[in-house]
């Protein structure tokens, strides 16, 4: 870390130099330039690349090799739980605890149609809840701060360009190499983003 901090003195700095380096950030004017930069960084072996764009850029997720989201499994899990829960909560009381025949309808599984609406509704609800909560939690929320917010240019208006960071935790990371690659891809505002001192110290 010491050497990186030394090197990053040549770059504009965000955050506090006393704190460890988080990433090197850069800004691009167009989504095409951003995608080209991601491609060249990944070709050089940098896998800890992340992007921040004002709107979804088609093809970017493929270049970043973002793995398939876990959301669909969470939704499936929520839905299957809901089906089991709804059927149990309807069949156990109406068959075992307090059997009550209404309107001559069979109370066991051959009366399935009457149990379906509630099962469907609960499946939808738990599936949707799993989707929303899963999205929030998998996205790393809730959190009070993010290292990127130390970078004024980004924090004040993240919609003014297409931002890219290479994390300092990348195994091939050196400030010099990343900077060179970024400059070659036409990046602007290349910045060393350090962490901010935490308040409770």
């Amino acid at each position, binding site marked *: 870390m010491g050497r990186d901090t030394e090197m990053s003195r040549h770059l504009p700095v965000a955050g506090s130099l006393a704190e460890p380096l988080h990433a090197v950030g850069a800004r691009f004017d167009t989504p095409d330039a951003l995608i080209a930069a991601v491609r060249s960084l990944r070709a050089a072996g940098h896998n800890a690349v992340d992007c921040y764009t004002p709107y979804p850029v*088609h093809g970017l997720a493929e270049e970043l090799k973002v793995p398939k989201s876990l959301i669909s499994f969470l939704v499936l899990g929520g839905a299957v739980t809901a089906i089991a829960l709804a059927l149990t909560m309807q069949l156990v009381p109406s068959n075992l605890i307090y059997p009550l025949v209404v309107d*001559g*309808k069979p109370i066991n599984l051959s009366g399935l149609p*009457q149990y*379906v609406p509630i099962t469907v509704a609960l499946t939808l609800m738990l599936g949707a809840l799993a989707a929303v909560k899963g999205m929030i939690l998998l996205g790393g929320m809730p959190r009070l701060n993010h290292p990127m917010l130390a970078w004024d240019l980004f924090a004040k208006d993240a919609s003014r360009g297409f931002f890219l960071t290479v994390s300092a935790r990348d195994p091939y990371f050196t400030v010099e190499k990343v900077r060179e690659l970024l400059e070659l891809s036409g990046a602007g505002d290349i910045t060393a983003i350090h962490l901010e001192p935490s308040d409770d110290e």
Partner: protein
Amino acid sequence: MSDETSHLPPAETFDYKHVGGRFIGLCVTAVVTLLLSLVLGISNPQQFAFSWLFAGWFFVTILIGSLFWVIVHHATDAAWSVGIRRQLENISCQLPLLALLLLPLLLVAPKVWTWMAESPAHNHELAEKAAYLNINFFWIRTAVYFLLFGIVALLFRRNSLAQDKDGAAIHSIRNRRLAFFIIPFGAIALTFWSFDWMMGLNIRFVSTIFGIYNFAGAVLAALCVIILLANALRSAGYLKRVLTAQHNFAFGKLLLAFTLFWGWIAFVQYMLIWYANIPEETSFYVLRSTGSWKVLGILLVVGHFILPFCLLLFRGPKANARFLGMVAFWILAMHLIDVYMLVLPVLHPEGFHPAVLDVVSVLAIGSTLGAFFLKGLGDSPLWPSRDPRLAEAANFND
């Protein structure tokens, strides 16, 4: 991203060398099966009436479903579906021909809609409904359905073809207005059409959701047909610039959505009738869930809903054109059985009773429509070549 207008795909026109023998084959099938149904029909007019109505309604749903997709395209100002819109227009414009093919129903109508043979004076139920359910009004309504949908389908296509010539956006706007106009009237017309033709097979049966049930089947069937047609045209080398892998994924999602829609509507109709337990309504399901009809009923639940739902649930296969084609073919077959289950149990309440005429009728109407469709396929570019949203459609990214 890059300048999209410079990448407008050049118009393609269908070359008949790709059909060749198959077109002749279709024509021969059409002539042979039409003659065969005439011969078989004279010897057994009642079976003919039911089989012809079954086959006719199957193709009515496909044509009306295609018109629905054209309407949705224009009403929502969609971009992704520009590449397939011309084919949807071509299919829905077969309506006048289908009306012609269904003319024999005029002769055998009392055999299939048995209330026509009865006198309201002797049938209290019919007397109560006579203001709506009388022969003259029935045929006027039928004419209105064909005229309304037929004229609208032809107008959509005419505007679309005019745009191919001058590229003016006004044609898109005219079509959008037409779409807004037809949505309420079309919804009402299709509802009453299915009341008249399908529910009228048993005038005691009533179900307010019946029109939506037929609509759901129609939209799903038309989607299957357009997926199969898109696959066929692409395997012949066409449409590749305007229909990409992204469109497959869109097709897959819509197929899943409308499978769910059909399943839910079908279930809701069943569940409400089952729960209310009113004899007028339950007779419909009692007939279709006793004896050998039960097997077909269960096949519909599993094959029309559960199986396609499970197959289409996963993301990967949904983007695969071959897989989608197979699922679409399966659902289309299930839709055929669905329509079969609406019509034929009325004729054979004792149980499943396959007849040569059932197959011959589907082949006769289907191959005639198919032959005329192929004959007209080369008359216009395969997609609206100067649609304002064509570039957007070709670069569609889901």
